[in-house]
C-alpha cells in the first residue's frame, strides 16, 4: 500500500535543505486534500496558518471516531513514522515548534509505541536543526472531539464543545494562536509527497465493514466502483445498501463510482471513505434507530437543535419501530431533520440527519410499512 511506505525519516533530511515556502508550494502542487472527510486543500491550509508572526501549533487529529472507520488506526499501527514525520514537516513549513498528537482514548494502547517513534524522530530532526516538540494528548471517549475546534477545546482543558467559526483555527486556534489541524492520513502522505514524484493523489483508504466476510482497509483509486470494493469484502448475502459511516448517509447498493461528486449527487457524503455494507436481512428502520442512538449519545449538548433534536429523532424512530407512529410523526421527523441539519452549530449536528434523510429517500417503504 502507498500509505504504508516507510522511508525512515528520509523526507526530513530532504526538507532540511528546503525553504518553508518551497515545501508549501510542493504540497499545494501535489493537490493533497484533507483525508479526515472535509477535503480542504492541505497546501492552502498550511499557507493560511503560516501567515502570522505569532507562535503556532500543529495538531494531528488521531481521534478517529466515525463508526466504520479504522484506516487511521492502520496507519498508526503500521506506519507511525510517516505521521510523525508529516507533523514535523508541516510544523517546519508553517514556522511552528510545538505539536500535539490527539490520540483517541480507545487507541491509547498505541501510546508507548508512538512515543518511541516521536523520540526517534525528534533526535533525527534536531540533528538536522529542525526543532519541533511533539506531545501526545489522550482523548477520553468523545466522538465530537474529532471536530477540529472541539479538539482545541479539549486540549485546552475544557469540555469538547466545538467553537463557532469564524474565527478559523488557522487564525485563532489552540490557546488563541494560529493552529494547523490535520488528519493522521493527511499528515502521513506528506513525506510521500516530498520523496516520491509519482505519488498518487487519487488513492484513498476505504474502510469496509458490516455484512462482509473480509472487512478491512482497502487502498483503491477514487472512482473505483462500489461493487468492486464490496466484492473484495466477500459479502455472503445480497447487499441492499451501504452507509458512509454514520454521518455520510446511505445509498442503495449499485454500480456507482466511489468519488465525491457521484456520491453527492445521490444525496450522500463520501467523507473519509467509510463503507458499511448492509445486506437484505437487515431492517433499515433498526439501523436508523441504531445510528440515531449514536448521535444522541455523542452530541456534546451545547446547541438546541442537536442536543434536543437528536433525542427527539431517536424517540420518533423508536415509536416507528414499535409500530406506534402515524403519518404525522414521519412528517415531524422530516421537519426535525431539516432544522437540525440547517441550524446545528457544528458538523456533528449538521450531518447527524444525513443517514435518515437518505434512508427516507431510498427506503421510505420500510418506514411507512410500520406506520399505524
Amino acid at each position, binding site marked *: 500500500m502507498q500509505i504504508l511506505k516507510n522511508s525512515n525519516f528520509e523526507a526530513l533530511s530532504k526538507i532540511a535543505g528546503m525553504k518553508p515556502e518551497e515545501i508549501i508550494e510542493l504540497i499545494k502542487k501535489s493537490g493533497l486534500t484533507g483525508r479526515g472527510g472535509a477535503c480542504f486543500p492541505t497546501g492552502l491550509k498550511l499557507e493560511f496558518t503560516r501567515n502570522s508572526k505569532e507562535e503556532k501549533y500543529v495538531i494531528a487529529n488521531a481521534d478517529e471516531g466515525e463508526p466504520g472507520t479504522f484506516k487511521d488506526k492502520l496507519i498508526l499501527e503500521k506506519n507511525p513514522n510517516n505521521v510523525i514525520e508529516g507533523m514535523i514537516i508541516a510544523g517546519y513549513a508553517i514556522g511552528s515548534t510545538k505539536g500535539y498528537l490527539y490520540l483517541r482514548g480507545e487507541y491509547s494502547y498505541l501510546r508507548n509505541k508512538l512515543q518511541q517513534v516521536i523520540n526517534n524522530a525528534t533526535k533525527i530532526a534536531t540533528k538536522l536543526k529542525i526543532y519541533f516538540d511533539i506531545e501526545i494528548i489522550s482523548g477520553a471517549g468523545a466522538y465530537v472531539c474529532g471536530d477540529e475546534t472541539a479538539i482545541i477545546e479539549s486540549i485546552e482543558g475544557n469540555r469538547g464543545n466545538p467553537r463557532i467559526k469564524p474565527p478559523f483555527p488557522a487564525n485563532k486556534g489552540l490557546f488563541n494562536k494560529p493552529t494547523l489541524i490535520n488528519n493522521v492520513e493527511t499528515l502521513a502522505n506528506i513525506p510521500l509527497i516530498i520523496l516520491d514524484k509519482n505519488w498518487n493523489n487519487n488513492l484513498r483508504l476505504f474502510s469496509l465493514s458490516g455484512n462482509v466476510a473480509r472487512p478491512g482497509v482497502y487502498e483503491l483509486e477514487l472512482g473505483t466502483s462500489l461493487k468492486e470494493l464490496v466484492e473484495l469484502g466477500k459479502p455472503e448475502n445480497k447487499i441492499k445498501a451501504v452507509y458512509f459511516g454514520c454521518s455520510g448517509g446511505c445509498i442503495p447498493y449499485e454500480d456507482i463510482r466511489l468519488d465525491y461528486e457521484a456520491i453527492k449527487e445521490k444525496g450522500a457524503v463520501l467523507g473519509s471513505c467509510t463503507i458499511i455494507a448492509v445486506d437484505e436481512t437487515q431492517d433499515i428502520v433498526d439501523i436508523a434507530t441504531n445510528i440515531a442512538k449514536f448521535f444522541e449519545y455523542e452530541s456534546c449538548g451545547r446547541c*438546541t437543535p442537536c442536543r*434536543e433534536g437528536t433525542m427527539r429523532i431517536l424517540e420518533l424512530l423508536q415509536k416507528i419501530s414499535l409500530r406506534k407512529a402515524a403519518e404525522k410523526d414521519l412528517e415531524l421527523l422530516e421537519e426535525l431533520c431539516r*432544522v437540525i441539519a440547517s441550524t446545528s452549530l457544528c458538523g456533528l449536528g449538521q450531518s447527524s440527519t444525513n443517514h435518515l434523510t437518505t434512508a427516507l429517500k431510498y427506503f421510505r417503504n420500510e418506514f411507512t410499512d410500520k406506520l399505524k
Partner: protein
Amino acid sequence: MKITINNKEFECDDNQTILDVAKENNIDIPTLCYQDGFEPSSVCRICAVEINNKLLPSCSTKVKDGMIVNTESKKVLEARKINTELLMSKHIKTYFIETKEHELCKIARNAGIRQIRFTKAKKIYIIDKGKAIITDNNKCILCGKCIQQCQMQNVNAIDFAYRSYHTKVTPAYENKLDDSVCVNCGQCLLACPVDAIYEKSDIKDVLKALKTKKHVIVQTAPAVRASLGEEFGLPAGTLVTGKMVSSLRKLGFKKIFDTQFGADLTIMEEAAELIERLKENKNLPMITSCCPAWIKYIEHFYPELLNYVSTCKSPHDMFGAVAKSYYKEKYKINKKDLIVVSIMPCTAKKFEIQRKELKKEVDYVLTTRELARLIKIKGIEFNKLKDEEFDAPLGLSSGAGTIFGVTGGVMEAALRTVYETATGKKLEMLEFNQIRGMNDFKEGYIIINNRTVNFAVLNGLHNAKEILEQIKNKKCRYDFIEVMACPGGCIAGGGQPIPTNKEIVEKRMQALYLNDKNKAIRRSHENPAIIQLYEEFLGRPLSKKAEKLLHTSYIKRET
C-alpha cells in the same frame, strides 16, 4: 457598507453582527442565549436568519458588504418553531408567578406556537433550595447565561456537566449551591430567561407576621425607591419614595424606617475606623464590608486578607441592631414582639442575615420584586397612592445615605465624613465625580491633613482578584477600597426589577444622585437622628457599645 434585511437596505460597520444591525433598526430577531456585554455563545439557535439559502446565527455572524438577509423566510420560521418547541418540551413550567416576563414563552407566542409536538420531559431534578437563591434544573434550557455571569464574576460556582441531552448546569459534584463558592449576588438570576433561578421567597413569613399583633417594622434600602416604580409600569429612574412608604404603611408595618439611616450610621463607624487605621498605618487598605456577596467572596477566595476588611456590619444590619436595642428600649417594645424586615435590591442579604456571626438583627429580607408582589397580592393600587413620609427616629437620613445604592456611593459618603471629621474643615464640593458612573474600576485621591489618601472603587467582582493579589503581594497603592459585587452597585442587585440592563441601571443611578443633591442634609455626621443616637445611647463611634452592636467578624470558607 450596506446590507439588506427583508428587502430594506441598511448602513453598517464591518465589525457589526447581523443582530447588531437589526437591533439598531428596530428589526426584531428573537434571542435567548445572547447577553449584552458578552461574547455570543450562539447555542440556542433561535436567532437564525437566512442568507444565500443557508441558516446562520445572526448573533455571531458578521456583516459583509452586500449581504442579503431574510429574517422571516419559510426556512427561518420553520427552524424557529422547531427549536422553540424543542426547548418548550424540555422546560417544565410549574408556577404562574414568575420573576419576570418569560422570554421563552414570549418567543413561542410570537412564533405562533399553539401546541408542542414533542412529549413533555419529566420532572427529574430536585429543586435546590438555597438560603437566598433557588435553582430549578427542570426549567433550565441550557442557554448558559448564568454560567457566563458567574464566570464574569470570577466566582465560577456553576458550569455545565454531563453531555448531550443529560447536560446540566450544576456546582461541582452536584453539591448544593449553598455548599459551593456561590456568593449569592444573583446576577445569574437576572440573566436567566426562563425563571429557572429565583430568590427564596419570604413573602409568606412576612404576611404571617403582619397578621399577628407583633411589632413589625420595615426598613428600605436606597436602591429600592429608585426602582420599585418599574414593577408598576413607571419609567426607570422614577423616584417613588413617598408611594413606597405609603404602600408599606397600608401593608400593616407598624413603623416605616429607612436603611439610609443605617447607612449614615455605617459611615460614622467606618469613617472612625478608617481614621484610626490611617493614624496607625495598620491594616491598609481598608475595604468596605457592606456588600454580603463581596464578603462571602473574600471569605472563600482570600480569607488570609480578611483583616483588611472593615469590621462594620452592613447598613441594614446595623439598623437592625439599633432597632433591637435603642429603639426597643426607648419605645418599650417587648423583645419577642419586635420583628425587623428589610426591603433590599439584593439576594445576598437573605443569606447574610442567617450568618452565625450576626445575631438575628434582621428577621426577614424581601427583594424589591417581592415587595412589589406583596403590594399586588394585597390589591394596593400603587400608582394611585399619595406620598407619605418615613417615621422618626430611624427614618431620617442624609444624602450620603442615599448614594449607598450606587457604585462609588459608599466611598463618597465615607469621604465626606472622613475628611470633615479628620480635618475639621468643610468640603468645598461634596460630589466626587471621579468615582461616579458605570466604569467597573474607578480611582481617586484626597489630601487629608497633608496626607494623600488614595481610594479605589470596584463594581462587579471580576476586578476583585487583581486588587486582592496586589494586596497579598503588598503592592497595593490604595488606602481605602469600595467593592460592590453587582455591576453598577446595589441598584443592579439580584433582587431588582427585571430587566436590569445598563441603560436602566444608569437611570436608577441618576435618580439617587439627584435625590442626594436635593437633600438638605448631605453628610452622615450632620444627620440629627444619628447625632441623637450617639448622644443618648452609643456614646461615640467605636465605643464599646458600638463595637458590640455594630461591628462583626468574618470566617474562612472552603473553595
